Every structure is written in structure tokens, then in C-alpha cells.
């Protein structure tokens, strides 16, 4: 067991998404040694004769108070607010805010844009990571790369966003290099890669955080699932290296990491820091829009912000419960 460090965008997600695979995995960053434990088959009896029941109720009570209650209370309050039941301007039950939000194009555009950023980020990062791991798995399991691949994970989203801005903005490093190389005559000729309507800056920042994360995840799964042996088997059955990598290793990795991939996608959808610094005013992501509406002086915007919160919550929580609840047969005993 080792100490390891990762950025917020990555380290909490790494562990969590590994656990979402149905496994609890703890990594050694360098050795990539993995401790696996299958959640779904675990049904452990407590020792009943010892009766530490009061302790159990205390513990579960603390869990409810710190993990479940805030979410429920927050959502309940916000729902009531959005329905006009509480708040400064509450005037009794009304659906007017819900109609205003759900009937507007900006809400659906924001949701669609958030989903687009998530899908693009995940698609690019998973694709790149898969390619790197199946073509040279050992590179990320031993040697210096197995350490350095962890470094990007120690960059928090806000710093990554700042870095990407300094790279890709009109006055950024790429533009300056382009100018020095004679590729352009001024910064106005540099394409708008940040604060753009296509979210290129946001996707780049998230890609830079997600790709190393998936490389580490896939490399560890590769090791853990003993894919090297499967690939060798495929080779003896007549597969060429490319077929072995893409018809055996890649599908297994994708299947095992499916929950992690979807969860990471949900994280990107709800991301705040990178869209705040790199997004455009005309095309926003969900978190940014919600907070902006909440912080405006126009009080009518507050219930709308809460409508968005509830709608978003219903969407992602449903997805998450579905995802995490899959294949839970055998646990009901």
C-alpha cells in the first residue's frame, strides 16, 4: 500500500471509478500492483455474538448525516424553491419557473453542449489511452513512464485551465511560436481556440487530465486482467499483433472500464473550473450557467438556477444509480 497523489479531477475519480467497476482497486503508482476485491460477491456476516450494534447505528447515522442528508436536504430545498414554495419571492405553488427553463432553448442547448463536451473529451481521451496501452502496455507498467504518467494528475482543473489558456489563446505560446516561425502576421490571425463556441479549450483541458487517467486505469487493468496472456493466446491462434491488440485487449479493457468511463463522462459534464475560464458566454456548460444565474442580481434568476440544478440532478443521479446498480444480483441476500 502506498501513498499517492492525484489531482482533484483525477485522484478521487481514479479510485472511485475503479470501484465502480465492481472492483475495489488500490494502486501502487510505480509498480501498478493492484489489490482487487469484488464488491458484488461480497456478503460478509458480522459477528453477531459481539453485538456492537450501537456502534453500527452510530456509524450509519454519521454516514447518513454527512453523505446522504446534505444531498437530500439540498435537493429538497431547491426543488421547493423552484416550485415557489420557499424563498424571497415565493408566492405559492407554481410551475412558471419550470416552464420557463424547460421551455427555453438555452437550457437544452446548455445540456446538449455539456454532453457534447463530455462525449468529445471521453472519446478522445479513451481513444488515445487505449491506443497507447494496447500498443505498448509494458511502457506504463514499469520504468520511468510509469511514474511520470501520474504527474499530470497532480494538476488541478483550475491550473490546467490557466495553462491551456496560456497555450491556446491569441496571445498564448502557440500563437507566439506561430508568429516567430512566420506562419502568421499577428495574434488576430490565430484561430479562436479558447472561449470559443466549440469548446475546444475546455475539451483540451479535460483531455489533458483525462488521458493520463485512462492510461493508468487501462495499464492497471491490462495487468490485473492478465491480458498479456490472453494476447499471447490470440497470437498462437493466428492473430497478428494488431488483431490481438484490437480484437482481444481493447474490447476487454473497454468492457471492464465501462462504468469508469461513463462516470468520468458525468464528472466532465458537471465540471466547473475549466468551462469558467475557457468557455464562451454564448455557449455555457451546466455548472457555469447555474452558478451565473444564482449570482446575478436579478432575483427571478434564482428559481431558474434551481430548476436547472434539480433537472441536472435527476439526470445524472438516475444515470449513476442505473450504472452502479447494474449486475447487483446476488447482493440481495
Amino acid at each position: 500500500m502506498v501513498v499517492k497523489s492525484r489531482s482533484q479531477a483525477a485522484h478521487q475519480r481514479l479510485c472511485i471509478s475503479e470501484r465502480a467497476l465492481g472492483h475495489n482497486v488500490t494502486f501502487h503508482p510505480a509498480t501498478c500492483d493492484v489489490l482487487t476485491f469484488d464488491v458484488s460477491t461480497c456478503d460478509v456476516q458480522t459477528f453477531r455474538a459481539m453485538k456492537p450494534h450501537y456502534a453500527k447505528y452510530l456509524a450509519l447515522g454519521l454516514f447518513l448525516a454527512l453523505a446522504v442528508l446534505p444531498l437530500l436536504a439540498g435537493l429538497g430545498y431547491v426543488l421547493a424553491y423552484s416550485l415557489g414554495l420557499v424563498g424571497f419571492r415565493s408566492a405559492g405553488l407554481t410551475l412558471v419557473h419550470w416552464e420557463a427553463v424547460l421551455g427555453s432553448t438555452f437550457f437544452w442547448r446548455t445540456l446538449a453542449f455539456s454532453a457534447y463536451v463530455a462525449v468529445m473529451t471521453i472519446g478522445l481521451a479513451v481513444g488515445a489511452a487505449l491506443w497507447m496501452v494496447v500498443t505498448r502496455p509494458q511502457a506504463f507498467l514499469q520504468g520511468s513512464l510509469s511514474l511520470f504518467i501520474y504527474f499530470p494528475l497532480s494538476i488541478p482543473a483550475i491550473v490546467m485551465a490557466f495553462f491551456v489558456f496560456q497555450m491556446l489563446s491569441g496571445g498564448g505560446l502557440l500563437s507566439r511560436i506561430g508568429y516567430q516561425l512566420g506562419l502568421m502576421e499577428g495574434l488576430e490571425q490565430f484561430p479562436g481556440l479558447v472561449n470559443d463556441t466549440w469548446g475546444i479549450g475546455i475539451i483540451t483541458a479535460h483531455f489533458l487530465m483525462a488521458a493520463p487517467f485512462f492510461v493508468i486505469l487501462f495499464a492497471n487493468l491490462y495487468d490485473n486482467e492478465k491480458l498479456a496472456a490472453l494476447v499471447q493466446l490470440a497470437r498462437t491462434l493466428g492473430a497478428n499483433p494488431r488483431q490481438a491488440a484490437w480484437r482481444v485487449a481493447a474490447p476487454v479493457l473497454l468492457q471492464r472500464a465501462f462504468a469508469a468511463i461513463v462516470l468520468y463522462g458525468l464528472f466532465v459534464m458537471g465540471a466547473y473550473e475549466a468551462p469558467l475560464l475557457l468557455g464562451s458566454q454564448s455557449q455555457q456548460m451546466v455548472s457555469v450557467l447555474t452558478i451565473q444565474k444564482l449570482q446575478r442580481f436579478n432575483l427571478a434568476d434564482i428559481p431558474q438556477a434551481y430548476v436547472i440544478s434539480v433537472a441536472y440532478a435527476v439526470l445524472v443521479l438516475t444515470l449513476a444509480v442505473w450504472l452502479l446498480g447494474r449486475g447487483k444480483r446476488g447482493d440481495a441476500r
Partner: protein
Amino acid sequence: MANRLIKYFFIGLLLFPFAFLLLLSLGRGWAYPDVLPQHWTVENWRFIWGIQAGLGRSALLSLSISLGIAGPVTLASFVVSKFIAYDRHRRRWLVLAYLPYVFAPVILAACLQGFFLRAELSGKVWGVMVAQLFITFPYGVIFFSGFWNEHMLAMEQLVATLGGTVRQAYARVLIPIARGALMTCFFQVFLISWFEYGLTTLIGVGKVQTLTLKVFQYVTEANIFYAALASCLLVMPPVVLLWLNKKYVFSRVG
């Protein structure tokens, strides 16, 4: 040879953001189209302790909040996760623990803002810490849920049949065995708190000036050198941990 070159190029790419931020933090005057800043100075770094900047104070504040969160959360989640892991409804509990994560922390903060205002915790360090508990504690529970398996239960039962009390089982077996996991959880929770921005801004209403808020403030002020400096401070602890960690791995794991 080509493979080795590719590898070093790749390592260079991975380390480039760190080098770039460090260079920028040592620069002054970066007019377009210069590729590098015109002047180099350590003045920016001295500025950390300057009175009006309060960057040093922000770093200390972030450090206090993160340490204050990491210790109690690690211990509490270690114990609580045991009861959850051994419960018949283990999976349901764990799904509940995931939800605060899937739900963006900043939107969670938006939903809870009203309660924090009423409890007069808004804009206070305590308030920010309480809010951070809501996302770090479930994380700790998920983290340790894998530690408590049948093997560990059998160990605990063995201690009992050998005559040990629950307290002795913790002190002499469970905690010593979990030492590595406890440290890992401690640092991870520390980092979640250390990197937290959205929730801290909202609950702290900008008054609890942690390092992440400073980065954002300098970025919006277009003060890229100080933003880079604050970024360096922010990135330093995880990088140091990662480096220590590597040694730890090699010295402890054969």
C-alpha cells in the same frame, strides 16, 4: 533508439506544464510576440510573503483547511466504512456514497447555500470545512470499502477468539495493517480539499481565500505571473507527495 526518443519526448510533454508554470512564475514582462518573458526575477516568489498579496496567508489557510479535513475524515471514514462494508445492504450504501461525486460539488454547494446562510456558516472557514466534509467523507467511505473484506473480517474474528477486545483488534491488528491505506486516504482527502474551488467559492462567498481562489483571482486580473506562482504553490504538494511516494513504493514493496 527511436523508441527511447519517443519515450523521452513523451516524458517531456508530461512535464512541460510544470516547467512552463515555473518559468512563468519567474518572469516579468511577456510582450507579444516574444516566446519567453523579457526579464527573469525571483521577486514574484518573494511576493508570497508580501502583505498586500496574502498569498502566503492563503497557502497557510488552504493547508490548515486541508489538514483539518484530512485527519478526521480519514479516521471517521475508516471506521464507518467497516460497518457499511459488512452490512447486508453494502452495495446500496456504496451507491449512496457515490452520489455526491456524480453530482457536481459546485451544484451541491448551490443547493446547500441557503442552509449555510441560515446557519451563519457562509463566508466562514468553518462553513467551508463543513461543506468539504460532505464530499470528502463519502470519498473516504468508498476508499476503505475495499479494505474491509472477508480476509480482514476473519483476522478480526481471530483476534476475538484469541481473547482480544474490539479495541485491541483495532490497535494491534487492523490499524497496523491499514497503515498504508490510511496514509493514502489521508493524502487523497487532503488533495481533494486542497484543489477544491467551486464549492469553496460558493460557501465561502469569496471571503475564504484559499489558494485556488487566488489563482482564479490573478487569472481574472490578467496577472499571469502571479497566477503562475499561485499555480506552482498549488501543484507543489501533490508533486512532492508523488516523488516521496515513489521512494516509499520501492523501499516497502519488494
